[in-house]
C-alpha cells in the first residue's frame, strides 16, 4: 500500500472539479492509455482579463494521478494564465503534502497538461514547442524538453529520479544512456557545483521532505576508562590547593560510571560548608569531563562495591 498523505486521499476520494467543461476554451491533453495514465485539463479563460475562471479535469490513472489533477484545478482557478504558467509539478506535489517518489510523475503530468492547455488558449501548437526536443523514451513518449524541465524544477540528479518523475526509462531501459546525457547537460548548465536544492517533498524518505536539521556538532571522541580516570584525578589535584588553604583536603575514592565518590578530610569533615565544597568538586569535574557526573561522599559508597 502506498503511503499517501491525507491530502492526496482527500483529493482522490472526493476529487474537486472532475468532469467535462463544455464552455472550455483551453484544453490540454497529455499521457496515453498505454502509459497507464492520461489527463485532459479543460479551462475556461476570460479572453479579456486572461483569468482562469473555471477548470475541470478527466483523468485515467492511479490514486495519485487523480489527486494531482484535482489539486491542479484548485490551484489554478482564479489565476491569470501567466500566473498559472509559474505552477510547477513541484508546487502540485507540495500542495498535496508530498507524493511517494515513484508517483512524482503524476504531478509532472499535471504540470504538462497545464502548459498544454495554456498553449492551446494562446493558439500555439503545443507539439511545436517540442519539435526540437528529441524523443528520448519511446516506450512512454518522453522527450528531452520534458526531462530537462523535470530535472530543473525538481533538482534531480540521478537516472532513477528522472524515471520516478517522468517515467522515462521505466520500461525497456534502452534510453538510459540518452537520459543520462540530458541529465548531465542540465547539470552542467545549472552548475554542478551549486549546492543542491532540497528535494521536492515525498512521503517516502523523510529526508526528502524536510531540509535536514543542522547536524549536531561532532561529539567529542569518547574517552577510554583510563583517560577518563586520569582526567578526574588531574581535576581533583587542581582543586586540592584551594581546599587545603581552608585546612581541609579531598581525595578520590572510587569511580562508578556517573557516580564519583570522594572523601573530604581535615577541616572539611563535619564542616557546615562541606556540601558546598562537594558541589564545587562536581562542577569542576563536569567541566573537565564534558559530561554530567554526580559527586558523592565516600560514605555513600555501596556496601561491597
Amino acid at each position: 500500500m502506498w503511503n499517501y498523505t491525507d491530502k492526496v486521499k482527500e483529493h482522490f476520494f472526493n476529487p474537486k472539479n472532475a468532469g467535462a467543461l463544455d464552455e472550455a476554451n483551453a484544453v490540454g491533453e497529455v499521457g496515453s492509455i498505454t502509459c497507464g495514465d492520461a489527463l485532459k485539463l479543460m479551462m475556461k479563460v476570460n479572453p479579456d482579463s486572461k483569468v482562469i475562471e473555471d477548470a475541470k479535469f478527466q483523468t485515467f490513472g492511479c490514486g495519485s494521478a487523480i489527486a494531482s489533477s484535482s489539486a491542479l484545478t484548485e490551484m489554478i482557478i482564479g489565476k491569470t494564465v501567466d500566473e498559472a504558467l509559474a505552477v510547477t509539478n513541484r508546487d502540485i506535489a507540495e500542495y498535496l503534502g508530498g507524493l511517494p517518489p515513484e508517483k512524482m510523475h503524476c504531478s509532472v503530468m499535471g504540470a504538462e497538461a497545464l502548459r498544454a492547455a495554456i498553449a492551446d488558449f494562446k493558439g500555439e501548437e503545443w507539439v511545436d514547442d517540442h519539435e526540437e526536443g528529441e524523443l528520448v523514451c519511446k516506450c512512454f513518449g518522453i522527450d528531452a524538453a520534458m526531462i530537462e524541465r523535470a530535472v530543473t524544477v525538481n533538482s534531480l540528479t540521478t537516472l532513477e529520479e528522472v524515471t520516478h518523475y517522468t517515467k522515462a526509462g521505466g520500461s525497456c531501459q534502452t534510453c538510459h544512456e540518452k537520459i543520462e546525457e540530458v541529465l548531465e547537460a542540465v547539470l552542467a548548465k545549472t552548475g554542478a557545483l551549486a549546492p543542491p536544492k532540497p528535494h521536492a517533498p515525498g512521503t517516502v524518505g523523510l529526508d526528502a521532505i524536510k531540509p535536514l536539521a543542522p547536524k549536531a556538532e561532532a561529539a567529542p571522541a569518547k574517552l577510554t576508562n583510563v583517560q577518563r580516570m586520569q582526567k578526574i584525578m588531574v581535576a581533583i589535584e587542581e582543586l586540592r590547593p584551594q581546599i587545603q588553604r581552608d585546612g581541609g583536603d579531598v581525595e578520590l575514592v572510587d569511580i562508578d560510571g556517573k557516580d564519583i565518590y570522594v572523601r573530604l578530610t581535615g577541616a572539611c569533615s563535619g564542616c557546615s560548608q562541606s556540601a558546598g565544597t562537594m558541589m564545587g568538586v562536581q562542577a569542576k569535574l563536569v567541566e573537565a569531563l564534558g559530561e554530567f557526573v554526580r559527586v558523592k561522599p565516600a560514605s555513600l559508597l555501596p556496601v561491597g562495591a
Partner: protein
Amino acid sequence: MTANNLQKGIYLDNNATTRVDPEVLAEMLPLFTEQFGNPSSMHGFGAAVGGKIEWARKQVQALLGAAHDSEIVFTSGGTESDNTAILSVLEAYPKKKSIVTSVVEHPAVLALCDYLEKKRGYTVHRIGVDNRGNLDLDAYEAALGPDVAIVSIMWANNETGTIFPIEELAQLAKAAGAVFHTDAVQAVGKIPMTLATSAVDMLSLSGHKLHAPKGIGALYVKRGLRFRPMLRGGHQERSRRAGTENAPGIVGLGAAAQLALMHMTDENTRVRALRDKLEQAILAAVPNCFVTGNPANRLPNTCNVAFEYIEGEAILLLLNEAGIAASSGSACTSGSLEPSHVMRAMGVPYTAAHGATRFSLSRETTEEEIDRVIAVVPGIIAKLRSLSPYWSQAGAPKEFAPVYS
C-alpha cells in the same frame, strides 16, 4: 456470518496470502512453549518434536498423493522451493545447458532464469501463451531437446488462475529426458493431486497460500531423482535442506495440509459457485469488462476481471474504502511502470490491462460477503469511469488522443 464480521473487511486476496486457520495455530502453539526441543537432539525434548515433524510430513504427502513421505522436503516457502529445484537439477546435470519455462511464471522462477541466462550462460526457452492464457504446446514440444536439463512450468497461474496441463507437459518432458518441476503454489490444496502416479519430478508449495503461516513451504522430490542441496550444513531433511527445522511452521503446514484435503470438495463446489456468482454478477452489471485467462479451466477460487478505461490502483483504493481487499495487475500498485507480465503475455490490450482486478476467494469466504462485493463494485467502476477521459457520458468509450508533451 454477522454484520460484525463484514465490518472487519471482506478479504478476497487469498492468492496473495491466506489467514492462518485457528486449528493450524492451535497445533503450532505448543511448539513455541513446551515442545521447544531441537529434533536433532538425543533427549526426549527433541524426540517429541521430531515425531510431530514426521506427522506433518505425512499430511503433506497425503495432500500431494505422493508415494513416500521422504519425498517431502520442508523449506522456507515457494521461492526457496523453486530456486532449490532449478539449481539442484542444473548442478546434477552439468552438461545440459537449457531450461524450459513459460512467460507467465512467478518471479521466483522467471527472475532466477533471467539470472542464469545472463550470468551463467544457460539458454532459457520461455513458452508463450494465447489470449486465454493457455500454453503454446507446439512451441513447448519444439523447445524440448537433449540439451534441456529442467522444465519449470507453473501448475496454475496466480493472476488468472488458469491451469496448465501439467501431466501432459511432464510426460513430454520425461520423454525428452528432462526433469520436470512445477511451481504449484496456487494449485496445492485447490486441485486434487496424485504425484505417486504422475510424471512430475519436483513440485513447489507454499504454506501461507493454504492457511498455514508465512515462512514455511515444501519441495516434493520424487524418489530416485538426483538432488543437490542449495543450503549445506546439518543433516536435516536428509541433508537436502540444512538448518534447524522450523518446527512450528512445519507442524502448521501439516495441519493446514490435513484441513485442505478435508475441504477440497468444498473448495471445488461451494467456493467455485461463489466465485461464479461474483463473476457473473459483475459481468452483468458492468459494461466493458471481461474475464482474463481461461474461464473453462482454472482454479475454483480465482476470478480476474479487466475493467476497460480505468486504472487498477484507483479501483483497489475505492474497494479498500468499502472494506474489500482485492488485487490488481496494474503497474501502479507495484511501483513498476508496466502492467503485469501475465496480462501483457496474454495480449490483453492496454485499455484493459491497467484495470485488471483479481478477486481470490477461500473456504472462509461467505455468500454474504460476495453479495456485498456485487453490490459495491458497479458503483466504484462507474465513479472512476466518470473521471476517465476515455469514457464519455454516454457510457461508451470515446475518442481521446492526447499527445505526450
